[in-house]
């Protein structure tokens, strides 16, 4: 918690490099840290063979953490005092102009980068198998980018705070899993098996959109935090139903052996009618991974293009107007319920597509994948990126998902902390700290400006985030 000691939070700090005061304050922080961490970190609870819990002291760890807090707090104090002296006027808060230029070209640039990514990775590695980790990571990141873009329609454009978005992801995934595993067993439908993914993809999206309407209809007149909580409740209800309705969903055990997607009918197998044999290349399991990668690239690209188009249409402008002022919308004859529902269901549809893809990629799904934390992470991606910003979603995904994932590979951490150090354990912890810190640093997200959807003049000027509202529902 040392890192959370924000300088702005301490009114007692006066400007001026007063080392004594800074030190005193740091010592106070140390005492507080000692009190807080004294037991929580200072002792480890261990279970004995007789199921007794005993306390094992971890004095060094505690001392280290307290020392970090004291030193960190001291340095922050000095730094903030120094800054208060040198900066008499607050710097104006604008988004980096470079980012603004990027935002305009984000779509195409990102698409090109995404398309080239596997090729670069494979060339760099020299062969297919060793590239698997990075391509898998690419699939993971793109899935979150797609989910972020889908939720962005709901939260960023329409200003509706949805904490249960993962429910639609689950609807998409279970639609595919259930349809694919039951349909192929039906007599006379076996020939459908290779095409299952392509049949179920639109069905998943449509069903998720339908659920968006069903869940959205009663709740969309609620405002602000209430809407957030109801959507959270719905998300949890769907998950609990998935766990408990064992006859259909197989409960917590999940659904396995979900048919994998095929190359438009050609399975990725070593068989004679497989992808590799048909194209006369040697079979490699990486073919499927790369194919999956391009499927999610295509899905994300569709999401991007459709969202961009919708934004420039009356419906998209109505979403944004709704975020800005719902009462004014009603005074202009806009049916706000329908407008909210379209935003909710289109966001849900993208979630459903992503869910279908997820189920096909994993081959196994269980309710464990659709916990509230997933919704929170997707929402964090949207908010940290900057509401409404497509580029923001990409950057936030890289930071929040890619960053902690990268920890896995940093060998030097093992050298510091010992060989049994597992950085992935700290992934979520770092995610939590990151969310808090980024909010304090940039409450409006990394990209807070808004692109106009239509202009009279030639040059589009981005609108400062100070004018853009966040919606109340």
């Amino acid at each position, binding site marked *: 918690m040392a890192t959370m000691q924000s300088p702005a939070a301490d009114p007692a700090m006066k400007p001026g490099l007063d080392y004594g005061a800074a030190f005193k304050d740091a010592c106070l922080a140390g005492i507080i840290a000692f009190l807080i961490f004294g037991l929580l970190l200072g002792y480890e609870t261990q279970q004995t063979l007789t199921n007794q819990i005993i306390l094992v002291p971890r004095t060094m760890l505690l001392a280290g953490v307290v020392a970090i807090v004291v030193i960190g707090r001291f340095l922050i104090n000095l730094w903030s005092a120094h800054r208060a002296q040198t900066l008499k006027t607050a710097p104006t808060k604008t988004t980096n102009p470079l980012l603004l230029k990027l935002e305009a070209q984000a779509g195409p640039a990102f698409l090109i980068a995404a398309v080239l990514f596997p090729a670069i990775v494979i060339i760099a590695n020299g062969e297919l198998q060793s590239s698997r980790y990075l391509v898998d990571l690419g699939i993971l990141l793109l899935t979150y980018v797609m989910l972020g873009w889908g939720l962005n329609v709901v939260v960023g454009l329409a200003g509706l705070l949805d904490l249960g978005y993962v429910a639609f992801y689950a609807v998409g995934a279970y639609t595919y899993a259930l349809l694919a595993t039951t349909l192929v067993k039906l007599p006379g439908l076996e020939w459908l098996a290779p095409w299952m993914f392509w049949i179920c993809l639109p069905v998943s999206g449509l069903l998720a959109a339908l659920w968006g309407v069903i869940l959205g209809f009663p709740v969309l007149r609620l405002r602000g935090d209430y809407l957030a909580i109801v959507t959270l409740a719905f998300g949890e209800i769907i998950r609990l139903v998935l766990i408990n309705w064992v006859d259909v969903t197989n409960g917590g055990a999940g659904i396995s052996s979900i048919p994998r997607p095929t190359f438009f009918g050609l399975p990725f197998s070593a068989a004679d009618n497989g992808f590799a044999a048909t194209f006369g290349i040697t079979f490699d399991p990486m073919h499927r991974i790369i194919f999956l990668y391009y499927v999610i690239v295509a899905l994300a690209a569709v999401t991007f293009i459709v969202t961009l188009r919708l934004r420039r249409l009356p419906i998209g402008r109505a979403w944004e107007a709704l975020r800005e002022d719902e009462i004014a919308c009603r005074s202009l004859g806009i049916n706000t319920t329908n407008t909210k529902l379209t935003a909710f269901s289109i966001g849900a549809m993208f979630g459903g597509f992503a869910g279908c893809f997820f189920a096909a990629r994993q081959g196994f799904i269980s309710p464990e994948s659709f916990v509230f934390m997933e919704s929170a992470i997707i929402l964090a991606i949207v908010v*940290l990126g900057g509401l409404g910003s497509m580029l923001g979603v990409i950057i936030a995904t890289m930071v929040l998902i890619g960053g902690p994932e990268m920890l896995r590979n940093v060998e030097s951490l093992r050298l510091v902390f010992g060989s049994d150090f597992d950085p992935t354990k700290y992934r*979520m912890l770092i995610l939590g*700290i990151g969310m808090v810190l980024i909010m304090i640093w940039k409450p409006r997200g990394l990209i807070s400006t808004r692109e106009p959807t239509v202009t009279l003049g030639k040059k589009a000027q981005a609108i400062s985030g100070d004018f853009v509202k966040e919606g109340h529902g």
Partner: protein
Amino acid sequence: MAGQPSLGQGQGIVEYFAQQLINGVTLGSIYGLIAIGYTMVFGIIGMVNFAHGDLFMVSSFIALLVFLFVTTIVGITSLFITLTIVLLASMFLTSLINWVIEKSAYRPLRGSFRLAPLISAIGMSILLMNFIQVAQGARNKPLAPMLTDVIKIAGEGNFVVAISYKQIVIVAVTALLLAVFWYLVQRTPLGRAQRACEQDSRMAALLGINVDRTISITFVMGAALAAVAGTMYLVYYGVVNFADGFVPGVKAFTAAVLGGIGSLPGAVVGGLLIGLIETFWSAYFSIEYKDVAAFSILAVVLIFMPQGLLGKPEVEKV
């Protein structure tokens, strides 16, 4: 959550009902205590403190650690003294944690973008949960059962109505602390300052109320009550896990909403109701769907009577 005796055939129906009533009130007191933290923070700064459920879980861990520390390292054998120390220490440390959290994660965001404190709170919730997981492990932490004696109230044979000592302790401590708390917010200048900030924090500041400090104290009070709940939870169930914050947190929030968010008596009434509904639902319908029931109540209440049972209705301003 609590183990229930199986439903008797024909006879013992009244006893079974009475037993569920006792269990429900016990559980409800725990929810009520957590709900007060939600309702007070929402009342004063209009924010759903997402991390409150996890704070409750942290307080439960603190209680566990203090209990082990006091019994094994200090070596106090009297259960009464131990539990008193555990309760007070957990209240103090949890309050301190919430004070730091408010000061570092929420205060810098006050008056900023409305979503920012919510995201910060979600981040804090993830942080608390995973901090405990990293620091104390992911496994359940069981504690040897205590206060296991029961008092038979009625019935005989298999159909008894019993109230255990720990249930008595939980309900009594809850009632006592609620009385103290009630006195604090209704009869002291501090309570007046809180209510003033609730009505109009800018005006309150103009009238010389230290709004920041009042909000800090609100968080501290909410945390102290959550710590009472956390300690009681540990005593009642004898086990705690790093993931135990979320579901009780949502249920307590449901209680706050059901009672009418912003209303303190509402939080207690809502907590008792949720505790009773959950217990009776598990006892008479299906234990699997008890959480579905709680979440459904939350959704239904928010949709059809967002002002709750004891809250004030909101008029849309045009």
